[in-house]
């Protein structure tokens, strides 16, 4: 479905929906007029009751965006997007869901069953109306999902627990109201509004996202996930996330969900900013499984995301882990700017493209501080007619004495219609730095398959096993409960690619 039609559908379902939630105040109109101009930006800002400085900031970003060109360099193809023919503010976003599981696409239910998701959860994930209203009936449930769908009290108790340590974890719009000084201090300092086309667009019209602040010396007592946040059930089209780890703070943040989510926005242009001060550590894990489009390549999400971290403090550390199996087009480069001496950046990635999916993803490691180190491990799997590109930059500034980088990019090809590409950029201006890059491309070896088949595994299971082995280095970086599901997810994503 083209972007326009899908957005229209979304807006229609919003306006016809009976369920309104998420905002404390009654609002007359809950969507901005179609198109994008200064008034749209003013409308969004006014709806959110934002202070003047933020409106100014948005308007400046909008002015910058208008002067920018949509980038064409990534190795992805898609029809042109008409930015004027879309709605930029539609809240609250509640779709007209199916009435019961019987109305849900049986293919989707099969996937849930394979992931081992209980019926109750399946209903919620599929967006069955009323499914999330009662508390769950116990049984095994992954922690992250548990918190989403459980009663309000559970989430509140988490919030209380976090507040006890002085941790701020809320929607970014809430943070603008409650903690304006922190937002003002950090917003746009890692990804400036004019950074790139989509970051500028996001800066002008962002409506939702998370804000996290971990105070000095605090180790966050639990994994934070968007799903803990009570008002984050529907993710916005233009999410903005800002995470600040103050001196010595440690936090692990999970984004996404292993089960396919119903989501009808076609263009996602999120911005994620991470700031780590002295001795702070941030671990940011993503499992992205948005709608990839059908087997013929129709529909699917365009995921154009800017994610960047600044290791500002000495001995700070940021680790990105991503498992990208969804979206028609994925285009993102979670990056680390290593400013503090002895700071550490890590990037672990698995990207799968099947059918007509396209992924152009990788990372940038910018070494500025002394003895900064970075590690990049990227595993790309192409199947069907999928195109998978690793694109990465390792830059060592003249100041980064003793910097160290190791990069490993492996690609696996399944079928002769797909493509795997590797485009690393290495720029070194310091003689004491050491940069190493390795990349390999191969297919699943016949003898490996034969070995598995001989032991009674079906071809599909054998491929799943081999692919999981191929991705092990990355999967082991995921938090436990994510890792288990991610493994199943890899196998499901590759369904139909063999035999």
């Amino acid at each position, binding site marked *: 479905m083209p972007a326009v039609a899908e957005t229209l559908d979304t807006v229609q379902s919003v306006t016809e929906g009976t369920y309104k939630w998420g905002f404390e105040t009654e609002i007359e109109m809950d969507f901005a007029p179609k198109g994008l101009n200064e008034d749209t930006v003013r409308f969004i800002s006014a709806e959110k009751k934002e202070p003047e400085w933020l409106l100014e900031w948005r308007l400046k970003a909008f002015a910058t965006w208008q002067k920018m060109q949509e980038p064409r*360099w990534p190795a992805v193809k898609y029809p042109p997007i008409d930015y004027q023919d879309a709605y930029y503010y539609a809240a609250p976003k509640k779709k007209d869901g199916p009435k019961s599981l019987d109305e849900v696409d049986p293919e989707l239910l099969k996937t849930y069953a394979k992931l081992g998701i209980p019926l109750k959860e399946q209903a919620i994930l599929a967006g069955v109306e009323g499914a999330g209203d009662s508390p769950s009936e116990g049984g095994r449930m992954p922690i992250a999902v548990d918190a989403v769908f459980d009663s309000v009290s559970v989430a509140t108790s988490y919030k209380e627990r976090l507040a006890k340590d002085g941790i701020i974890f809320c929607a970014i719009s809430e943070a603008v109201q409650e903690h304006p000084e922190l937002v003002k201090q950090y917003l746009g300092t890692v990804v400036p509004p004019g950074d790139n086309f989509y970051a500028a667009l996001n800066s002008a019209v962002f409506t939702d996202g998370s804000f996290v602040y971990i105070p000095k010396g605090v180790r966050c007592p639990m994994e934070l996930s968007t799903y803990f946040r009570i008002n984050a059930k529907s993710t916005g089209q233009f999410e903005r996330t800002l995470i600040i780890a103050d001196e010595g703070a440690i936090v692990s943040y999970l984004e996404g969900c292993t089960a396919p989510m119903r989501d009808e926005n076609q263009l996602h242009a999120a911005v994620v900013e991470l700031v780590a001060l002295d001795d702070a550590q941030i671990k940011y894990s993503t499992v992205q499984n948005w709608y990839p489009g059908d087997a013929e390549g129709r529909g699917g999400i365009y995921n154009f995301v800017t994610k960047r971290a600044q290791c500002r403090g000495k001995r700070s550390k940021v680790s990105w882990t991503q498992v990208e199996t969804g979206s028609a087009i994925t285009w993102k480069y979670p990056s680390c700017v290593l400013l503090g001496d002895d700071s550490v950046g890590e990037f672990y990635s698995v990207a799968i493209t099947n059918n007509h999916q396209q992924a152009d993803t990788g990372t940038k490691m910018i070494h500025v501080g002394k003895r900064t180190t970075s590690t990049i491990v990227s595993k790309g799997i192409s199947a069907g007619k999928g195109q998978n590109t690793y694109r990465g930059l390792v830059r060592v500034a003249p100041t980064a004495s003793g910097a160290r980088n190791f990069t490993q990019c492996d*690609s696996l090809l*399944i079928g002769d219609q797909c493509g*795997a590409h590797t485009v*690393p950029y290495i720029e070194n*201006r310091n*003689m004491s730095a050491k940069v*190493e890059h390795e990349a390999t491309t191969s297919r699943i070896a016949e003898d490996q398959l034969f070995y598995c088949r001989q032991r009674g595994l079906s071809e599909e299971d054998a491929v799943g096993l081999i692919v999981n082995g191929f991705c092990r280095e990355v999967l082991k970086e995921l938090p436990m409960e994510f890792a288990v599901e991610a493994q199943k997810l890899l196998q499901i994503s590759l369904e139909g690619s063999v035999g």
Partner: protein
Amino acid sequence: MNTVVHSGAEGFLHRFEGLRARLPGQRLDWVQALREAAAAQFRTAGFPTRRVEAWKYTDLRPVSDAAFDEALTILGDDVALPAPRGERRAVFVDGRFRAELSQLDDAGFAIGSLAEQLPRLEGRLGALARPAEEPLVALNTMLFEDGLLVTVPAGVAGGVLELRSLTSRSERPSAFHPRHLIRLEAGASLTLIEEASGPEDTRYLHNPVFEIELAEGAVLTHARIQREGVKGFQLGTVYARIESGATYDNFTLNAGARLVRNEIHAVLAGPKSACHMNGAQLLRDGQHADTTTVLDHAAPDCASRQTYKTVLSGKSRGVFQGKIHVHQVAQRTDGYQMNQALLLSPDAEIDSKPQLEIYADDVKCSHGATVGALDADQLFYLRARGIPEDKARSILVEAFLQEAIEGVTDETARAALESAVAGWWEKEAA
């Protein structure tokens, strides 16, 4: 009246207007058409800027800001040619073939000046070059004056042929654009040792283009030694088409010039063909060297090997860009690429962009890149055995380069490369 010398692309276009009636092939319609088309392409493209992805790391402004004139070949007494490296030698001065300096007797096959044979080259000249894609090749096509023409007939072992390119001393910066056509028929072989040099006090632009066709089973060893003068620019492009079972073995040593671009486009066009592209860049203060390779695996069962090494001292900058493109038909491709850089100075910069683009599934492709200083442990090991620091460093640099040179199987070619490397290091150590 003073003649105004224009700079940049404008200057070359201006020169084309003035020279067109005197350039070789002015009476041949097809040559005229080639030149006109190239001029139009060059007019549109101009000199590539760093905004062009293929030129991200090399700034051509030192070339495009300068004004170049036609070379006024005045050979001084100082043109002393060392003994030839093989049986035969073709000498070019300022891009023009000089029969009296060359030794080409009894070759048993055609070697000579491209300009003289031009009427017979329709369809061959320009068969591989892509002036529409590479602006510098458009520049060459617009203005080529001469070049080396070699055709080795089927089954003939062509032995060693030396190609010497000299530049004459001049007050005014000059530019020349030779076009070299090399064809090896089925089963033929040849070792081509190319050496380019020039005076240290002359500004000049040497912009050669090679079109190399290797028929079934042919083997070409192509050793290139670039020792242009420190004020010279060399912007060279090599196109090679390698048919089934043929082998192209290229080694490029960049040791001279203020700015050099060594661009190679090789196509493995027939099954079971092979391509080796190796090279070394030895850079001193103020030098910029860029090796850019594009290797197309366009047929099944082909193998490619690339090893490039760069040693940087002073305030120098080295660039390596290497792309391996495996087409969907190119099943069972075996591709390997390695590029390594050794930084000897805190002011040096190295930029490296290896690239794999793969559309076939039954392939084995890998690339690697490393960048760093001399290994402190290795230095210590040698010092501990009583070897002075200078000597220890030289041993380690030599060992670093040896890995790339080892790949050259032809002994004459390898000896030439080894002596060039040794010469560079002696100067460096001094």
